[in-house]
C-alpha cells in the first residue's frame, strides 16, 4: 500500500461559510486521505505556505463569496513561484459555470459546484494520483511458443493465410521469432534456440501454445514507474530491447493471473 494522499482544505478570503469545506474534509478523511483544514480567512500566501509545510499533494479551495476568480488563480500562481506546481488544486463553492473555463485555464484542475457528491470529489483526487491504470494503445502481439517455426508456418500461412513478414533471432532471449502481421497487431511464433531458453522451458512444462500477450504503451518508462508505484510485481525492472527493436518489459505472471504479460513501446509511435 502506498502512503495516504495528503490534502489541505482551505478557505481563501473572508467567506465564513465552511459547512461544505468541513463536510468535504471529513468525507476525504473517511475515504482514507490525510486532511488538514486551514480554518477561515486565509490569504493565498498563507494557504501555499501551509501546503508546503504540511507537504500535501492536493489543495481544495472553497469560496462562496464570489472571490474565486481572484483568489483561486492566486493560489496556483504562488505554488508555481514556489516550484510546487505538481500540487493538485481543486475548488468548490458558489461558482457560476461561465467562470469555470477561466479557472481551469488558470490551473485549477476541477471545480465542484453545489450538489456534487463527496464521493465524486474523492474519486477525482484518487484517480489523479492512482490513475485509471496504464494507457494501452493496442494489443501489440501475441507470442506463441512452437517447437519449430518452419513446421508451424504450415498451419499459420497455408491454413490461416497469414503472411510471414520476417524471422529474427533475439540472442539474449535465446529465441528465434517469426512475425505474422494482422491488422494493427501481429502473431509472433517463438522457437527456442538453446535448451536453456525460457521458451524451451515453457515448451517442456506446458507444450506448444500461447506464451504471452504484449500490449503497446506510448511511454514504457512511465508505465513501469506507474506499475512500481502501485506495487505490481515485475520480471523486468527496466525496459530492454526485444524483437523488432521494440523496448519491452515483462510483468510477473503472478501479477497477471497466470498470463505472461508484456508491455512494449515502438519508436514508430
Amino acid at each position, binding site marked *: 500500500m502506498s502512503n495516504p494522499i495528503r490534502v489541505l482544505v482551505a478557505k481563501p478570503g*473572508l467567506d465564513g461559510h465552511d459547512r461544505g469545506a468541513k463536510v468535504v474534509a471529513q468525507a476525504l478523511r473517511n475515504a482514507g486521505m490525510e486532511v488538514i483544514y486551514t480554518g477561515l480567512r486565509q490569504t493565498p500566501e498563507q494557504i501555499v505556505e501551509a501546503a508546503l509545510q504540511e507537504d500535501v499533494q492536493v489543495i481544495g479551495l472553497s469560496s462562496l463569496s464570489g472571490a474565486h476568480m481572484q483568489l483561486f488563480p492566486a493560489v496556483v500562481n504562488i505554488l508555481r513561484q514556489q516550484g510546487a506546481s505538481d500540487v493538485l488544486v481543486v475548488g468548490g463553492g458558489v461558482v457560476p*459555470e461561465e467562470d469555470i473555463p477561466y479557472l481551469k485555464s488558470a490551473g485549477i484542475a476541477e471545480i465542484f459546484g453545489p450538489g456534487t457528491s463527496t464521493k465524486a470529489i474523492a474519486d477525482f483526487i484518487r484517480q489523479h494520483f492512482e490513475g485509471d491504470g496504464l494507457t494501452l494503445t493496442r494489443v501489440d502481439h501475441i507470442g506463441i511458443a512452437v517447437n519449430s517455426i518452419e513446421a508451424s508456418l504450415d498451419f499459420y500461412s497455408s491454413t490461416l493465410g497469414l503472411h510471414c513478414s520476417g524471422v529474427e533471432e533475439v540472442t539474449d532471449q535465446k529465441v528465434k521469432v517469426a512475425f505474422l502481421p494482422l491488422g494493427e497487431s501481429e502473431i509472433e511464433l517463438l522457437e527456442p534456440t538453446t535448451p536453456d531458453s525460457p521458451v524451451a522451458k515453457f515448451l517442456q512444462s506446458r507444450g506448444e501454445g500461447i506464451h504471452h500477450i504484449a500490449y503497446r504503451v506510448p511511454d514504457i518508462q512511465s508505465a513501469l514507474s506507474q506499475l512500481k508505484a502501485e506495487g505490481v510485481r515485475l520480471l523486468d525492472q527496466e525496459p530492454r530491447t526485444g524483437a523488432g527493436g521494440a523496448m519491452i518489459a515483462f510483468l510477473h505472471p503472478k501479477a497477471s493471473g497466470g498470463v505472461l504479460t508484456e508491455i512494449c513501446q515502438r519508436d514508430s509511435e
Partner: protein
Amino acid sequence: MDEKLASAQAAWESNLQNKVLKRFPERREKFDTESGVEVGRLYSSADLPDFSYEENLGFPGEYPFTRGVQPTMYRGRFWTMRQYAGYADAAETNARFRYLLEQGQTGLSVAFDLPTQIGLDSDHQLARGEVGRVGVAIDSLADMELLFKEIPLDKVSTSMTINAPAAVLLAMYIAVAEKQGADTKKLAGTIQNDILKEYVARGTYIFPPEPSMRLITDTFAYCAENLPEWNPISISGYHIREAGSTAVQEMAFTLADGIAYVQAAIDKGLDVDKFAPRLSFFFNAHKNFFEEIAKYRAVRRMWAKIMRARFGAKNPKSWMLRFHTQTGGSTLTAQQPDVNVVRVAFQALSAVLGGTQSLHTNSKDEALALPTEDSARLALRTQQVIAYETGVADTIDPLAGSYLVEKLTDELEAAAWEYISKIDEMGGAVRAVEAGYMQREIQDSAFRYQQEIENETRIVVGVNKFQMAEEHHEGLLRVDPNIAEKQVARLQRVRATRDNKAVNGALVKLRSEALNGSNVVPCILDAVRAYATLGEICGVLRDVYGEYKPTSTL
C-alpha cells in the same frame, strides 16, 4: 384521556400490522423529521394525553404566545416583506432598494460585503477579491448617505445584517437620519449584532467573546435610551441551520445565545424589562413543512417561559419572541434552479403558518450567484401570493389543534430543553462556543445530512433523483469587476477631503473610552460623523480588544 379512543387506535394499528402492511408495505420502515423526531403513522387526541389548551396554547398576544405574538396577527397587517439585498457599491444597491420598494416590498434589508462585515476598509489587503461581492461595500458615512439616498429613514424600517461592527453601522444609520432631518426616536429597524452565532456558524467575527459581549450590551443600553423603536439585536438561528444543524439544534442554540445576551445585560446592571421588549430573533424556513411550523410555535413558547421564569421579566412584551424568517439558502439547488421557486414557496408558507413577523424569500438563482432583479422580484411575488391569494393569513395560527402539529411542537420543545440544560451545565453559551461544542454538534449533523443525500435515503429533486441534462444557466448577475477600484477611489477621496484633525480626535477619544470600559456607542457616533472609516474605528477597537482566534473543531 379518552381510553376508548386509545384502545380503538391500538386495535386499528394491530390490524394494520397483521393484515395490511404485509401486502402493502410502507415506503420506509421509519419516518422521521430532519431533527430525527419520529413521525407516526397517524395522530389523534390519544397522542396528546396531557394537552391543556390554556397551558399549551393560550390566546394570540398572550402568554405563552404559542399562537402568535400579536392579538390579531395577519388580520391586522401582513408580515413585513423584507428582501435581503445589496451588492457592488452604495449607488447600485440604492437603485435595487428603490426598485424593491416600488414593487411593494415593505421593509429594507441590507447585505454588506465581507470586508464591511469584518470591519476592514475596501483597500485592506484582506479585502482582495471580496469588495462588493456578497453585499454592498461601506467604508464611511459618505457611502451610507449614498445607500439611503432619497429613502426617508423615518418612514421605512431597515434591517442590517451586521454583527461584529454593528455599533459602527448603526451609528452611520443614525448619522444619515440626522442629515435627512429625521426624528431619530422614530428610527425603526434591526441590527443583527449576534456575535455568538458568528463564532458558531457564520464566521464574520472580529473581537474575542468578552469584549464582543460588552459591545452588544453597549448597543442594548444605547438603543433603550435613544432609539425606542430599534431592535438592537436579531438573535439568529438562521445561520446555525445553514451550517447544517437540525431544527432542534437551531432552536436550542439560538435560545441559549439569547439567554447569554440577556444575562450579560442584566449583569451589566440593565433592567430586563427596559431592553428585552426590543430583542428580536431570526429563523430559517427549511424543508420539513410541519416540523418547521412546530419549531416556530415551540420556540415562542420556550422564550416566554425563559423570560418570565428564568429572568423574572414582568412586562409581557419582554416575553414575546418576535422573529424574521428567511427560506433556507442551503436547500436551493444549482441543478434545475427553477424548481427552487417551488421549494421557496413551501418554506415561506411554513413561516407564515408559524406566525413570522417578517419574511425574506430566496431567489431561485442563489445557488449559482447573487439574484438578478427578475428573480428577486419573483421571490417577492411568491410571498405576495401567499399573503393575498391563498387565504392562509385570514385566521390566526390555523394549524393549532392539529394532533400532529401540537405533538411535534411538544416534542421539539422537549428536545431543545435538553440541549439548553446541557449548555447551562457547561456554563452557558459563551463557554459552549469556546469549547467548540455547538460547532461540533452542527458539523456532525451537516455530515450526516450529506451522507443521507449520497446514500439516497434523503432525496433532493434534481440532485440525486429526477436529474436531467441541463444547458448552462444564462443571465446570472455579475458584479462589476472594477467595483473595488471605484470603491477604493471614493474611500481615498473621503480621506483626503474630511477634517483629519477631527477624525483623529474622535479616534483618540474612542480608544480611551474603550480602555476604561464605558459605553463606546456615543464616541463611535462622533467618529462616524467626522467621516472616520469603518476600518479606522474597528482598528482602534482591535487594538484595545484583540482579535478572536477560533477553536479548531476538525
